[in-house]
């Protein structure tokens, strides 16, 4: 149901009133407490929220029930008292600056969040939506949230679960949805925004940036891809299964829809085990993950694209030794439907974005230097680089990646688990949104 102009106006008024009434008098610790309790309620055994999400989300998000379960674990396990406190302390120096003037050096200072934050959510993965709303509450802002038609479920259930814990806090958030084409509605929503947080494709972000009031703070998170690198010293017979499992997790979670999902694994040659061995192990790990957490249903177009890619490479692979393909059903005869995962080995260093939905490339490489060359032209679009193993040599490589403008380097297996306090696209999450008042 598309929101009307009146509903948007009303939501702005209501959330701002709720903010005046509630948040101005709530300590940041109390807000953290409510968020943490909400997260605990989701993670509790027999959580009704989990049950409802598993029931409702697959239909709209396209994720399987198991994937919805996995998403709940990934999302809500990060919302702990320690993590939220660390986020605030790291970004603002001390969380209490949101409650009162605090002594900083020789003067007192206090931080204020925006009066109204307007959030534009993307529907591909649920985690950023929840984090975005949580940040708005921590900053004691009123929050007008435009959901994505791809996922109205998670934000709605999150706010409902928050309402159960602290209904006044939940009043500070209004969830609405309207079509992107309704420019007048978007303008109405933005008119009084002091801050805008937007997720989506680059054209959406830049359009919103244009529409946002000139003095509003604007955090835009555009399109990104990720990849991973496996160092030659990282792989031996003993740790290969665990490494492959970690890699398969990164590539399979959220069916590869997120910006943290790796599209390509570059594997260094001349290790104890070769890149092909890695590809093979990755394939079994993808199959095992599929058994536990099935990939969601695909649209006809998506399924056609996965099928096209697989068939094309499979045809080539029979006579071209530079190419190999592993795909479900696995030779072992797993029960998975065709193409629920595809691993393509290709001896060609160029970075190729996957068609998503658990299709991943493994490419041999001559060393880290070659990887830098291969990803040069997409570097500006890279979110995360997973590395196995994080050692001294890898840190030097990380420095080179940082110089190219890549913002996050982490161990393989952790790509989908950024800490709450990570610098999303190289930026702070809270510090960019507050303004400071000094006294004395």
């Amino acid at each position, binding site marked *: 149901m598309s929101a009307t102009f009146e509903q948007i106006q009303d939501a702005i008024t209501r959330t701002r009133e709720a903010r005046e009434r509630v948040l101005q008098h709530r300590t940041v610790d109390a807000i953290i407490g409510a968020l943490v309790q909400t997260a605990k309620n989701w993670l509790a055994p027999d959580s009704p929220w989990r049950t409802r999400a598993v029931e409702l989300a697959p239909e709209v998000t396209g994720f399987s029930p198991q994937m919805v379960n996995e998403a709940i674990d990934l999302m809500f396990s990060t919302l702990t008292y320690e993590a939220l406190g660390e986020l605030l302390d790291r970004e603002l120096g001390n969380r209490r600056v949101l409650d009162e003037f605090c002594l900083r050096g020789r003067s007192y200072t206090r931080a204020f969040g925006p009066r109204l934050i307007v959030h534009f959510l*993307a529907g591909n993965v649920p985690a950023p939506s929840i984090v975005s709303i949580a940040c708005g509450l921590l900053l004691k802002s009123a929050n007008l949230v435009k959901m994505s038609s791809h996922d109205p479920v998670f934000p709605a259930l999150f706010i409902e679960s928050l309402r159960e814990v602290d209904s006044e806090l939940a009043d500070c958030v209004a969830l609405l949805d309207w079509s992107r084409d309704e420019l007048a509605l978007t303008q109405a929503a933005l008119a009084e925004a002091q801050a805008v947080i937007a997720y989506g494709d680059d054209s959406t972000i830049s359009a919103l940036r244009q529409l946002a009031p000139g003095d509003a703070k604007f955090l835009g998170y555009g*399109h*990104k*891809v990720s990849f991973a690198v496996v160092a030659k010293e990282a792989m031996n017979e003993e740790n290969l299964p665990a490494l492959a499992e970690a890699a398969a997790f990164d590539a399979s979670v959220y069916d*590869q829809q997120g910006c943290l999902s790796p599209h390509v694994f570059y594997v260094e040659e001349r290790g104890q085990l070769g890149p092909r061995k890695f590809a093979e192990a990755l394939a079994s790990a993808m199959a095992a993950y599929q058994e536990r957490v099935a990939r969601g249903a695909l649209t*006809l177009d998506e399924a*056609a694209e996965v099928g096209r890619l697989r068939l094309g490479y499979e*045809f080539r692979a*029979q006579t071209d030794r530079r190419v190999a393909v592993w795909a479900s059903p696995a030779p072992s005869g797993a029960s998975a439907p065709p193409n629920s995962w595809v691993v393509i080995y290709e001896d060609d260093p160029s970075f190729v974005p996957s*068609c998503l939905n658990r299709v991943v490339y493994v490419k041999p490489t001559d060393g880290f230097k070659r990887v830098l060359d291969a990803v040069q032209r997409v570097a500006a679009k890279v979110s995360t680089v997973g590395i196995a193993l994080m050692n001294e040599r890898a840190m030097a490589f990380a420095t080179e990646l940082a110089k190219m403008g890549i913002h996050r380097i982490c161990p393989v297996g952790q790509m989908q688990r950024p800490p709450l306090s990570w610098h999303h696209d190289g930026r702070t999450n809270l510090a960019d949104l507050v303004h400071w008042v000094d006294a004395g």
Partner: protein
Amino acid sequence: MNVDALDLQQRVIALIAGSTTETFERLALDLFAFQFEHCAAYRAYCEHQQRTPGTVEDWTQIPATPTGAFKDFALTCFPVEQAVAEFHTSGTTRGQPGKHYFATTELYDAAARVSFREHLLPDGARLPMLALTPSPRDAPHSSLSHMMGVVAGDEAEFFVERDTLLVDRLTQRLCELQWASQPVTLLGTAFAFVNFFDHVAQKNLRFEMPEGSRAMETGGFKGRSREMPKRELYALFEKHLGIPAFRVVNEYGMTELSTQFYDESLLVGRASDIKRVPAWARVQVIDPNTGREAAIGEAGLIRVFDLANVWSMMCVQTEDLGVRHETGFEVRGRAAGAEVRGCSLNAESLSLS
């Protein structure tokens, strides 16, 4: 060329010509055995699929060659240096073009003539043929131009030169024919027609082509004109040329095949999106989510079994979506690929050059 192959070729030509002593089913298996033997890349793929002449029991089990493979391999069952013609795909989206090599165009030409006559000239009319494409001489690697040359025969007139649609010459010719009360057949790509109609609209012209006129349009805009839905385009034939929408027939063909498929509109006397399949071909609609044939009324990827492809690949897996019908199939167009959602990226949006 070996005797068996020439025999196969003669049998397919007989089937195309309407012989009832040959059956598709038997010929398909013989042709599969021949192609398995003579095309190494295809053989390797079939062996990988564990589908060989020894194990394949009916035509539906014959492994399909993806159209993309025509870019990576010369898929022929004869020495490629003996090719008398080669047609190239436009290859606009993914790098190098696909190539289809011909040991002879005899099969292609026979198949093209029969299907065209049946679907465009069911009344046996002999009409001037105005093609909005380059001539086969000007575009020797275009299967479309070759086909136009074959089906239009001696009556053919071509109105594209050096990549330019000769709008004035075409306008002039249509005026003459209209004046002479001579019905006409127009043939061209969707984007050529759109460009022509834009010109006609701009010049405030309106033709009323004599009754019996008809048009063949073949899909794909490829960014060369503004895009529009089929029905909207066909309404423009009526508006600008006076050719009723049901007398405009969509052709579905591709470089990798020798056989074309047409809307049944002129056969049934009303606008229809259903394409019939001739005796020497079969079309399956494969559900990409299951790998199995879609149910009637359901959509999937179009797979073509084309016996006229004796010297290349008889069974081709296209990248086009279609709907299976009782009496044929309907084309929906190129599969769009994964939708970009949220913060991830796919190949299209990363726009790698």
